[in-house]
C-alpha cells in the first residue's frame, strides 16, 4: 500500500461522521446519475419499441415524416409493385392510429394505440398473434396488450376467467378475443391489435388506400442493401424503402431531436454530478485547510508537493469507491421500483455502470484538483 494512500485513509477515517457524510454525498450523486440516465435510456428504448418490434427485412415509409408515430400515409398501390422483384416473398401493410377505448367498468374513455395488420404474417414481434389469425379476421375482433396501463380496467384478469370481453372502441362495439404481452411506451398507454379490415371499420374516415407502413419479407439469402437499391425506383418519390435498422436509427434520432428526454434526464444526472462534486470538495477543502500547518510541516521535513497532492487525490478516490457501490445497489432497487410503478422497463447496463463509475471518479478527482490548490499554499517556512 503506497504511503500516501495510507495517510489519506487515516485522515478520512479518523472522523467517522465526516467520512459518513462525505460518502453519503457521493452515494446520492451516484444514485441520481444512475437513475436519471437509466430512466433516460428506458424512455428512449420505449419510444423506439414499436420500431424495434418490426421483424420485416425492409420497411416502406412515407418520405414526408420522420417518425412512424406521426406518420404520413403513402399509397397502398405502391406496395403491389414490389412483388415483381424475385427476392421479395411477402408484402404486407400496416395501419396505425390513436383511438379511444372505453373502460367497461367505469365507462370512461382513454386513448389507445391501434394497429391494423395481417395477423398471419405480421412481420412484427407480437408474441402469439398468429394463433388468433382466424379470430382477428372475423368482424370486429381485437387483441389486447396485457401490459397496457390499468386505465382500461382489469381486462387482462377478466380474460383469464372469461373467453372474451366486449368493449367500445371509437364508438363501435368490438370483442377482445384475448390478451398477449407486448409492452407500452412513453407515447402510448395501451395497445390493440387487429386485422387491416377491422382497423378500417374503427376508422371509417380513413382512406383504405393510404397505409402507414409497408413490411417486406425477402428470401433468406437476399442482399438487403442491393434489393433496397433496386426497389427504391419502383416507389418513385411517394414512398421510401429502408432497412429495419435504418427505421430504428431514424426513430432514435427523432426522439433525441424532438423529445426533451436528453435534456430533462441529462440535467438530472448533471445535478447529481454537481451535488457530489460540492460535497466532496467541501469535505476535502476543510480537511486540507484544517491541516495546513501539518501539511506545511511535512513539506518542511522533505515531503514533496507531489506526495501531498497524492494524499488529497487518494482521499477523493476512496470517497468515490465508498460512494459508488452503495449508490449502485440503491439505484438497482430504484430501477425495480420504477419498473413496477411506471410499467416501463428500466435495467442496468454494463456501459452505464462503467460510465457512471468513471463520472464518479472524475467528479471526486475534480473536487480534489480544486482542493489541492490549497496544499500548494502550505509554506514550510511558515511553520517556524
Amino acid at each position, binding site marked *: 500500500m503506497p*504511503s500516501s494512500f495510507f*495517510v489519506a485513509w*487515516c*485522515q478520512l*477515517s*479518523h*472522523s467517522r461522521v465526516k467520512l459518513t457524510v462525505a460518502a453519503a454525498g457521493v452515494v446520492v450523486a451516484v444514485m441520481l446519475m444512475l437513475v436519471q440516465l437509466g430512466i433516460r435510456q428506458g424512455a428512449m428504448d420505449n419510444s423506439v419499441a414499436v420500431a424495434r418490434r418490426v421483424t420485416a427485412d425492409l420497411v416502406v415509409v412515407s418520405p414526408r415524416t420522420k417518425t412512424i408515430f406521426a406518420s404520413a400515409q403513402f399509397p397502398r398501390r405502391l406496395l403491389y409493385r414490389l412483388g415483381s422483384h424475385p427476392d421479395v416473398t411477402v408484402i404486407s401493410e400496416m395501419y396505425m392510429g390513436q383511438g379511444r377505448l372505453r373502460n367497461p367498468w367505469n365507462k370512461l374513455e382513454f386513448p389507445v394505440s391501434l394497429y391494423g395488420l395481417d395477423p398471419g404474417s405480421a412481420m412484427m414481434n407480437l408474441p402469439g398473434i398468429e394463433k388468433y389469425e382466424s379470430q382477428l379476421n372475423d368482424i370486429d375482433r381485437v387483441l389486447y396488450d396485457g401490459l397496457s396501463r390499468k386505465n382500461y380496467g382489469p381486462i387482462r384478469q377478466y380474460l383469464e376467467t372469461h373467453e372474451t370481453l366486449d368493449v367500445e372502441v371509437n364508438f363501435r362495439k368490438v370483442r377482445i378475443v384475448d390478451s398477449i404481452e407486448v409492452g407500452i411506451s412513453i407515447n402510448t398507454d395501451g395497445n390493440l391489435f387487429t386485422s387491416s379490415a377491422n382497423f378500417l371499420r374503427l376508422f371509417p374516415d380513413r382512406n383504405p388506400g393510404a397505409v402507414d407502413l409497408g413490411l417486406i419479407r425477402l428470401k433468406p439469402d437476399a442482399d438487403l442493401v442491393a434489393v433496397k437499391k433496386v426497389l427504391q425506383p419502383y416507389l418513385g418519390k411517394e414512398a421510401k424503402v429502408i432497412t429495419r435498422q435504418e427505421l430504428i436509427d431514424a426513430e432514435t434520432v427523432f426522439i433525441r431531436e424532438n423529445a426533451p428526454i436528453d435534456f430533462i434526464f441529462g440535467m438530472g444526472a448533471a445535478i447529481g454530478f454537481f451535488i457530489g462534486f460540492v460535497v466532496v470538495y467541501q469535505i476535502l477543502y476543510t480537511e486540507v485547510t484544517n*491541516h495546513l*500547518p*501539518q501539511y*506545511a*510541516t*511535512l513539506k*518542511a*521535513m*522533505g*515531503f*514533496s508537493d507531489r*506526495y501531498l497532492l497524492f494524499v488529497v487525490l487518494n482521499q477523493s478516490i476512496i470517497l468515490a469507491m465508498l460512494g459508488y457501490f452503495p449508490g449502485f445497489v440503491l439505484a438497482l432497487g430504484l430501477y425495480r421500483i420504477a419498473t413496477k410503478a411506471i410499467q416501463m422497463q428500466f435495467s442496468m447496463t454494463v456501459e452505464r455502470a462503467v460510465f457512471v463509475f468513471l463520472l464518479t471518479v472524475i467528479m471526486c478527482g475534480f473536487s480534489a484538483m480544486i482542493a489541492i490548490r490549497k496544499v500548494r499554499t502550505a509554506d*514550510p*517556512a511558515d*511553520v*517556524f
Partner: protein
Amino acid sequence: MSIPHITTQTNLATDFVPSLLAERPVISARHVNFAFGEGDLQKQILFDVNLEVGSGEIVLLTGPSGSGKTTLLTLIGALRKVRDGELDVLSRPLHHATLEDLVNVRREIGFIFQQHNLLPFMTARQNVQLMFHLHPEVSTHEAAKRTVDLLTSVGLGERLDYYPARLSGGQKQRVAIARALAASPRLILADEPTAALDSQSGRDVVNLLQELARNQKCPILMVTHDPRILDVADRIVNMEDGRVHSVEG
C-alpha cells in the same frame, strides 16, 4: 547508546578537537543578507550574517524577537531560498540550489518546531514511521523496529498507539523529537522546542535532545529564549537587529 560510548565521546571532545575543526563545518554562512518584500516595501531582516556550526556541536541562537533568528533558521533549513550571500549546509551550496535540491536537503535535517504539528489522525507510531517514506532504502520491517526503539527511548514505549489528542504537551513534543530523529538526520534544527512546555517537561526534552544528538554525533542548532536550557550549549550565538551580536563559549 551505552555508557562506554559516551566515555569515548568525552575523549573525542578533548583529544581530537583540532581534527574536528579541520573537518568542513556542517553549516557555513558567509555574508548572508536577507530581506522580505520588493522595492520600496523591502524590509531587510539579516545583515551580513556569518556563522559556522561544526560536527557534533550544540549551538543556541538567542536574541530578542524580531532579531532574525527564525529567518536564519528557515534559510539553513532550506525552507527559503538564499538570495544574497553564501550558505553551505551539509556540504551543499544552498545559494545555488533549485527547489528540488532544497527538498533533498530537508530530508537530511531533523526539524523540531515550537508546535509539535503531529498529524492528528495518525498515532504516535504512525507519525514517526511516516518519516521512513522519505528513506525507501530502509526496509518496512526495519522502519517499524526503529520506530518502536525511538519512541521507547523518548519514554513513550507504552503509548505507541495513542493519537496525539490523548498525549500531553510534553509527550507530543517527545513524539515530534522521535519523528525528527527517525531518519537519522545529519543536522537538527529546533525552534523554541520548550516554549510550549512547563519547566520539567522542557528540561526533559532538552536533555533528551542532548543525549540522543550526542549519541548520533549530530549537531544541533536551536533557537531559544529559554534561560533554563542555556547550559547544554557548546556555543551561544546572540543576535540583535539581524546581525550576529556576540558569540559566547
